[in-house]
């Protein structure tokens, strides 16, 4: 097929094209831009920015049982949220949860990725097996964990297994002393999300040039821990940073498993669950709930900025 073109008689001269073409092109591009991004921008404004603004506005009003209040209360809602103990307690719950789930998920997903990466056969099978739980909803998984795996009766899976070793039935979720509920909450999230982060690590592992390992071997590096520590881990730095950031964001968003596993408790409530109960749940206090949401948003911004500073995410040398 010929790739040469012939100049058409009706085609504008280069001078005309230089004058008219770009203008027309820009206009067309602009129109296309708005057609394709307009709906999403509208959605962003309507479903994100308006609610944020509305929430900020609500936080300064007495808004029990209404989202169109008229009684201005200043910072009362903020004072209420920061002094009632439930909200501040939820921040402690989040801290404990994040302190457990972030490093454990990081380690587990990296371990799974290393394992799958080194497999010589059935690689695709194991990759799928570990990734599949990601497709399961948190609600469904929580109910399975609650009703089957960690049920407190004798035919609950964990109690059955422990029963073989003479261990009495345990109420995993009902009794906060000892706090076995953390085992349930953490394990369900690990099961659900470790596979996803495994895929990220797997992709990063596949991007490490094999020449690095070959060179290290020539220089006398022993395979195993030494190679992992001095080559693999540094090469995964950017991915690890991203994974930690994503895990922390996901921890902040923790809701479903806590909500479904820990009904009618005063413990094990991360911020979103606490705000849900305050605003949408029994209290229906949209003013206080909004104040809590604003405080939480500010906190997340601060943590993100601090994390960026300490982990160096986004620094120029990250790309190198």
């Amino acid at each position, binding site marked *: 097929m010929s790739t040469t073109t012939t100049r058409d008689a009706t085609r504008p001269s280069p001078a005309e094209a230089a004058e008219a073409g770009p203008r027309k092109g820009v206009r*067309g591009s602009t*129109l*296309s831009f708005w*057609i394709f991004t307009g709906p999403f921008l509208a959605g962003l404004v309507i479903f994100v920015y308006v609610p944020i603004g509305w929430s900020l506005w609500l936080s300064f009003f007495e808004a*029990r*049982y*209404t*989202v169109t209040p008229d009684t201005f209360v200043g910072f009362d809602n903020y004072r209420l949220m920061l002094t009632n103990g439930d909200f501040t307690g939820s921040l402690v719950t989040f801290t404990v949860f994040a302190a457990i789930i972030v490093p454990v998920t990081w380690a587990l997903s990296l371990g799974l990725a290393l394992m799958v990466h080194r497999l010589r056969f059935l690689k695709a099978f194991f990759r799928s097996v570990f990734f599949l739980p990601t497709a399961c909803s948190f609600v469904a998984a929580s109910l399975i964990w*609650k*009703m*089957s795996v*960690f*049920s*407190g*009766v*004798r035919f*609950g899976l964990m109690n059955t297994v422990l029963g073989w070793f003479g261990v*009495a039935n345990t*109420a*995993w*979720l*009902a*009794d*906060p*002393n000892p706090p076995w509920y953390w085992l349930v909450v953490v394990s369900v999230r690990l099961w659900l999300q470790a596979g996803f982060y495994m895929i990220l690590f797997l992709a990063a592992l596949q991007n490490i040039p094999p020449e690095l390992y070959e060179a290290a071997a020539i220089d006398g590096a022993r395979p195993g821990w030494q190679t992992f520590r001095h080559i693999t881990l540094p090469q995964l730095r950017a991915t690890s940073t991203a994974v930690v950031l994503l895990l922390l964001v996901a921890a902040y968003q923790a809701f479903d498993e806590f909500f479904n596993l820990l*009904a*009618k*408790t*005063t*413990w094990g409530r991360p911020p979103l669950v606490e705000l*849900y*109960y305050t605003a*949408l*749940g*029994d*209290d*229906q206090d949209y003013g206080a709930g909004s104040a809590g949401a604003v405080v939480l948003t500010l906190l997340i911004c601060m943590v993100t900025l601090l994390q960026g500073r300490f982990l160096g995410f986004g620094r120029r040398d990250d790309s190198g």
Partner: protein
Amino acid sequence: MSAPSSSNWDRRSVLRATAGLAALGPLAACGGNTGREGGGSSGKGLVQYFHAYGEAGTQEAVKRYAKAYDGARVSTQWITGTNFESKLFSSLLTDNAPDVFEFHPQLQLIRSGQVAPLDDILAPVKDDFNPADITSHTVDGKVYGVRMIDDPQFFFYRRSLLEKAGLGVPQTLDELAEAADKLTTDKVKGLFLGNNMVSTNYALVWAAGADQLNDRNEIAYHTDDVAAALKTYRKMFTSGHLLLDAPADYWDPSALVQGLTAIQWCGMWAMPVMQKALGDDLGVFPFPPAASGARPAVYNGGWSMFVNAKGKNVDLAKEYVKWLWIDRKKYQEDWALGYGFHIPPRTSIAASATKLKSGLPAEGVKLFTDYGRFDNISWTQAMITALEEVVANAVRKGMDPEKALDAADVKVDRELKKLFG
């Protein structure tokens, strides 16, 4: 067949397609599930909210009643899970709120103008209702909500297990704790109070000789006897004699039926299933007194139908409520007795309910009559939560009951001030 050339998708085509899709939008909306069947030009529509009942056939029954109504197309949202309250409360603030919904009488719904008074449709039959049901729905002389069913809650027990242990029916809270101890084996727990132990909250307070609020709408649950009863609960919780973390909660009969427990707190709705599984090996008794001089307690729960006062079809919704829950006695009887056992709030229907006239159902009705206590309309959802937190803190977490009650007082006082000034 040739594949469409990509050159066909110029800007005009894209615009035409976009415009076409936009034009199809309204048509698509007609066919979409908006939750409001029959809206717009195809006739009047109503939406009703029901929480998911556990008894088989209830969902079909509600839909069958709705279908039989000629005045409008009534669509039913059958809400599963434990978040019925949350979904209802949040939807009542939106344009997608239900026109009619079932719930319990609570003052905040009235104060915030979310439910309509129903005196006009109730007036002709008001005397036929259980007076306590009318009282529990009345504020400032107006009646809000039509009671559909009364649901007494008490203890169900396996007669054979108590006999084998040489036990009679517990007469005090201490005896109940003792029974739980003696009935517990390596396979069967002595007692099931629900997974989070809040289902007996009201009964515990009443059995300790207290009340949630007094006649002046002041805190009445914070007494020494209630604190002492909470300590007994704590001992029961730590003893290992309670069934905890069961797959289904107190409202489901499976814990007793599957032999996981010897005694279970449950509602009369579950009686048919229990009788079918256990035959005559089944008895009932009220929550035993937890303080000297106090009476046994039975909580008369139940559900009522309310009309959304801010809805678009208030008059039509009231018509529907009247048609179904006031005029159609057959449906009311079917709803109360066709699936689980509930006590019909209408005296005339209860009088003709042969299923409740003998045997264990009659014992249940007697407990309802002798010891039953009804909802207090001033005891709102936030207060319910505050008392639930007392049990979570003082019983399950081990906090001093006085401190837990003090914490609840702060929240309940705040709520009372909002409601009564």
